[in-house]
């Protein structure tokens, strides 16, 4: 069912020329809009900070930071996973996902702002020691490390494309970035080895960083909350939203920059199976987090269960559960929806929105009880009311997300939307070959 619909197969030279040309067609109008929104968000953040908001209101800024740390930081990880597992279907959308490595530029400053808002740390249950600087120091070091690894990965994957640009006579910044890449077999082998090892490091540091975020910014704040599946749940919903975000961006870029011949339907079809699996895993983790406090019925468990799921944020919980699990599951089991482009992209958009709502539920709830004294027990009957967003909070959320979009568009001006060297490997590996007289069959090579 590969797409044979008439599109004449693209020759490698034509692909290089066309993809490099695409980088010049990045619409400056959209760049301007996102830039303005980002600046508005920054100003709103400054006004918000000067207004000495309560910790509960800081929950909104924390939820958008957690959303960015989850979705956009996780998007590039599918490239590493499919590269490790030699997943052939993901070759076209790898660059679209890898461009999200730029989020480090936005999340690091926002993270440093939020780390300063943490309540005092004396004998609070935490994975660090009692030292107030514990979370501040370790988390910031880890955050900066994660952002730098991301940027390094972004540069490395773009290296062969800069060399192509240099070969096409581009004298600007890309030529200097190419820095002596000749494409010798030794260089290719070194590039592949570096991409796999650095990707593995990025994946592991991403997963353990989520342990630090959840335990420092959520679980240590709520007295009596000790759910050990929560870091895994946080990381997994990040993966799911990352994959959803990649599909949405790939569909948009495919439409706006007319890349129909470069991003075929196979990529969306393969990704939708992975998205279905991740949505089912999302339900599985949420369920294992819900069944145990319900069954245990100890006072602190009933308290944090009501706070997070059935108390002030009940409707947020139901909405995010529906968006993250029910709708994707019910849409993606049908074959026709999976083998289309609009289907997985639409489901991806729903999952991204669901993930933002889920982060709001978690961080609003935990930051609203952050000021409860350390020894006190949470009481299930009188929990703080739901905090509703003000204008400033909404502006900050929109500003943060558009800041990431702005960096993404900038990166797209530098690198083509579909990586040239991976597109060529795709051309190399897949060939149409007659089989048994008059039957066309796609033959896919599996290099060792």
């Amino acid at each position, binding site marked *: 069912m590969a797409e044979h619909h008439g599109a004449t197969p693209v020759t490698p030279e034509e692909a290089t020329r066309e993809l490099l040309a695409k980088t010049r067609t990045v619409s400056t109008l959209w760049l301007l809009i996102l830039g303005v929104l980002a600046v508005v968000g920054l100003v709103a953040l400054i006004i918000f900070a000067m207004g000495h908001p309560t910790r509960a209101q800081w929950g909104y800024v924390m939820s958008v930071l957690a959303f960015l740390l989850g979705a956009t930081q996780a998007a590039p990880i599918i490239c590493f996973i499919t590269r490790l597992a030699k997943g052939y279907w993901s070759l076209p959308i790898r660059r679209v996902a890898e461009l999200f490595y730029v989020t480090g530029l936005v999340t690091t400053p926002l993270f440093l702002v939020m780390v300063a808002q943490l309540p005092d740390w004396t004998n609070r249950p935490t994975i660090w020691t009692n030292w107030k600087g514990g979370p501040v120091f370790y988390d910031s070091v880890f955050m900066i490390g994660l952002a730098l690894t991301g940027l390094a990965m972004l540069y490395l994957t773009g290296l062969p494309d800069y060399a192509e640009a240099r070969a096409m006579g581009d004298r600007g910044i890309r030529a200097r970035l190419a820095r002596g890449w000749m494409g010798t077999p030794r260089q290719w082998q070194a590039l592949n080895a570096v991409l796999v090892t650095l990707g593995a490091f990025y994946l592991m540091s991403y997963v353990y960083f989520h342990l630090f975020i959840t335990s420092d910014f959520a679980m240590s704040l709520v007295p009596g909350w*000790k759910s*050990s599946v929560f870091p895994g749940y946080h990381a997994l919903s990040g993966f799911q939203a990352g994959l959803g975000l990649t599909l949405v961006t790939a569909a948009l870029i495919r439409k706006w920059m007319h890349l129909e011949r470069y991003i075929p339907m196979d990529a969306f079809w393969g990704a939708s199976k992975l998205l279905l699996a991740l949505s089912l895993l999302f339900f599985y983790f949420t369920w294992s*987090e819900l069944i145990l406090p319900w069954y245990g019925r100890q006072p602190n468990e009933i308290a944090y269960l009501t706070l997070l799921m059935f108390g002030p944020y009940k409707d947020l919980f139901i909405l995010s559960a529906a968006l993250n699990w029910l709708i994707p599951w019910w849409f993606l089991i049908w074959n026709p929806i999976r083998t289309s482009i609009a289907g997985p992209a639409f489901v991806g958009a729903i999952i991204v929105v669901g993930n933002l709502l889920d982060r709001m539920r978690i961080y609003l709830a935990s930051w609203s009880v952050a000021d409860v004294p350390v020894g006190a027990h949470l009481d299930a009957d009188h929990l703080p009311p739901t905090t509703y967003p003000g204008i400033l909070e909404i502006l900050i959320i929109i500003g943060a997300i558009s800041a990431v979009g702005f960096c993404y568009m900038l990166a797209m001006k530098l690198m083509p939307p579909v990586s040239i060297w991976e597109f060529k490997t795709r051309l190399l590996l897949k060939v149409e070959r007659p089989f048994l007289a008059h039957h066309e069959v*796609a*033959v*896919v*090579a*599996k290099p060792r």
Partner: protein
Amino acid sequence: MQERYELNTPKINDDLLRFPLHTPLWFWLVAGGLASVLGLAGLTYLFVLYFGLGLLGYTDRIMWGFLITNFVFWVGISHAGVMISAILRLAQAEWRRPVTRAAEVMTVFALATAALFPVLHTGRPWRTLYWAFPYDYNRGIWPDVRSALIWDPSAIFTYLTSSTLFVFICLIPDLAVLRDRTRGWQHAIYAVLAMGFQGTSRQWKLQTIAGILLSALILPVFVSVHSIVSWDFAAAILPGWHTTVFPPYFVIGAVHSGVSAVVTLMFLLRKVFKLEDYITPDHFDALGRLLVVVATAWLYFFLMDFYMGMFGGEEAELAVWSLRMYYPPYNVLFPIFIITSYFIPVPVWLFRKFRRNLTVMFWTSICVNVGMWLERFILIVPPLSFKQAFTFLWQDAYSPRWTDWILVIASFCLVTLGVLLFAKVFPIIPLFDIKEGQVLKQELRIGRVRVPAVIRE
């Protein structure tokens, strides 16, 4: 990636049907030996049944011990069959062909042995058998759906029936080949079992769809079975047990120990049935890479359990973890468990040279399963011997008696005997899968190198 020998159909049929059609002498010795161990274990259990559970190593605080550890271990091993065959069928990985049926057969027998152990360890097993299932309509006494021990039989019953039927459905084409190759009473039996399978293209299309559809259906069941087994422990409010990470932790632990068991099984199959052409170092290479990923995921969930144990700072959780790490005999078992299940095998599996060396893979997979058996023991028993603040003395460790050891060893013999008998009656490697591999085998010439490829319509 696949070392492709020139295999034609008659050679495949001869090689793979050699064991079902001609019984070598050693078969009778091995089967007899295993059966005698099982007889001894049966005798021991009757002994325990007559005199009472006091013969086992239980005490008043540690009410669950070796038998429940063995139950969780064998349910874990059984999950490898589904993990390997279902996920690899869905991902259309080329190297799944000789592996799927052997793994699924191990699933069925490991699960049957596992389902035996909760019955053996209860006080009145003759009542456990029929009260766990909802059939007692005239006395109106029903199982309590709220208890985790009722989710267990429903999950294991679903999983056992579905994996057995899955093995049977994929067996039908090979039964047709056996029917054509045998005479007399064997022919009659195989003809009845093959139900008149002709091999029309429609039947083959349904076979491939069945493989994929049933794998997609059995995968969620496999995840739910081991999560429910973990909720047996997580539902209790004991300090070491009541953590929410247990379901994913147990499922990943099951996949880790299960896939290692598949590596052991494949090594034995290749050695015993001389299947060098079919189980090649490529399969061990691919399984080794998969094991590295699964082992690292398992370590992540183990560390989650470990961190969150320390996270709360409650003295109950800290006491259980210090018991697991510092007090005899757990202070010896804990490092052995950590080293054998992760820090010996995974560094070895990182190197291609070791992954392709069969004896290295065999001994590392044995080492993983020793570690995972200890992991279940260390997970289950220490929280039971936890000392409350008001009690005076600690429960000393669980001391297994000879009856415990015999029942545990007998479970290994039962699974080996089961797989051996299955391999005697049916081909352990699916014939039509190997033949399909030959049909779809292609070669791509890129420059001077010949890259193996496969038809993927």
